[in-house]
């Protein structure tokens, strides 16, 4: 081990090049950094906004796009009504606006096809975002690594990337999607309508050819605590579970 580490990316300007509403509360923004970079699926960027009086607000957002996508860095930003950064993006930001960004950041909650699998991904709400980068990365690399994504949302219309994920599921190429809706009946035959529990995790793992070698869990703190415990109770070793939490 050495204390000499690579310097991390400094702040730079980035231009918004595309905006697309994903769900009633989540909108995707694509950014073109002035100095392009290549990230790993699962990494995040920090975004900084500056008010005329010099006040700055800074937040971390996971990258939704695959490293290979090449059409800008996609961030899927959920509108938090009492936030100070997400309302700016939802209510003010337009294509052509510039913000400041630094990244890519984070070296733990990442996955590349060379890491292998099988992989169990578990997301709650907007916790799907870094997992989406992993799923897209796998697809763009034509990887055969078995991956199952368990995704929990309140209702069908709040499932971020829903149509894209279902289309990937339909390819039957080793990627499996398990949706669970906590406030609505399931819409697809093999999906669920309850919170993630041990039985659901066991069933999801059975869709893999063998037990997962890596597991990633992302969502609110309450979601991650409950889901990670369900994984452990389903026999997934704690040492292979990586978590990313947000919120209070």
């Amino acid at each position, binding site marked *: 081990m050495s204390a000499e*580490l690579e310097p*991390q990316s400094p702040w730079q300007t980035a231009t918004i090049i595309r905006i697309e509403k994903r769900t009633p509360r989540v909108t995707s923004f694509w950014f073109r950094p002035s100095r392009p970079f290549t990230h790993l699926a699962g990494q995040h960027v920090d975004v900084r*906004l500056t008010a005329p009086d010099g006040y700055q607000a800074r937040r971390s957002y996971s990258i939704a796009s695959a490293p290979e996508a090449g059409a800008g860095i996609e961030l899927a930003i959920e509108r938090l009504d009492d936030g100070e950064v997400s309302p700016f993006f939802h209510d003010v930001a337009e294509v052509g606006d510039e913000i400041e960004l630094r990244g890519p950041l984070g070296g733990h909650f990442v996955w590349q096809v060379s890491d292998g699998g099988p992989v169990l991904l578990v997301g709650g709400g907007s916790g799907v975002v870094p997992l989406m980068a992993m799923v897209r990365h796998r697809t763009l690399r034509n990887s055969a690594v078995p991956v199952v994504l368990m995704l929990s949302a309140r209702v069908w219309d709040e499932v971020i990337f829903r149509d894209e994920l279902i289309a990937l599921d339909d390819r039957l190429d080793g990627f499996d999607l398990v949706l669970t809706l906590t406030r609505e009946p399931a819409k697809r035959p093999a999906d669920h309508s309850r919170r993630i529990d041990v039985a659901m995790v066991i069933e999801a793992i059975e869709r893999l050819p063998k037990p997962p070698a890596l597991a990633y869990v992302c969502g609110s703190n309450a979601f991650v605590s409950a889901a*990670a*415990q369900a994984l452990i109770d389903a026999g997934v070793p704690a040492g292979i579970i990586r978590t990313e939490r947000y919120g209070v």
Partner: protein
Amino acid sequence: MVTRGFFSGRRPPSDTDERIPPGQYLEQGFPVLSAGPTPRVRTEDWSFTLKHGPRPIKSWNWAEFNALPQSKMTRDIHCVTAWTKFNTPWQGVLIDDILADAGIEPPTAFTLAHSFDGYSTNVPTRDLVTGKAMVALLYEGTPITPDHGGPARLLVPHLYFWKSAKWVNGLQFTERDEPGFWELRGYHIYGDPWREQRYSGDP
């Protein structure tokens, strides 16, 4: 660079401005962050070990550790994910008192804190002694909950909070400044919030 159309709606009142490091915002809750699942460490299984390199100096079980002199510390804490929380009240054993009970002076200038889940983080020894840091056992007067690092967590409140290792089970004195878990994954080797040392390479 001024952001078009951005006017902050959440500026802290001016009398607390000086307590909020650059790039941080004031948080009333207590967010939970960790690299993996929350380990459930039973106090029957708990132990704390002081090491110099690979060599154990002294270990304490839960009862022995709780019998050490305890101190209170109320501090502002600063998480690298940008939240700052004021006046968090902790109680535990100062690192000074752990060293005194072991009958040693700090043998090296660098320390790695270790945790039950395999996490580690490096802190210069001078940042742990002279009343600057403790192994905390209580938060707001009650045992620290598992998601906040209980039964015991390191508390180094003047550095970004990832340095305050949850589920701590030992301190290891090292000859060199060896990066820990997050420091090997792009985070700053020291982590001073007032100099905004978030990521490696920050000045």
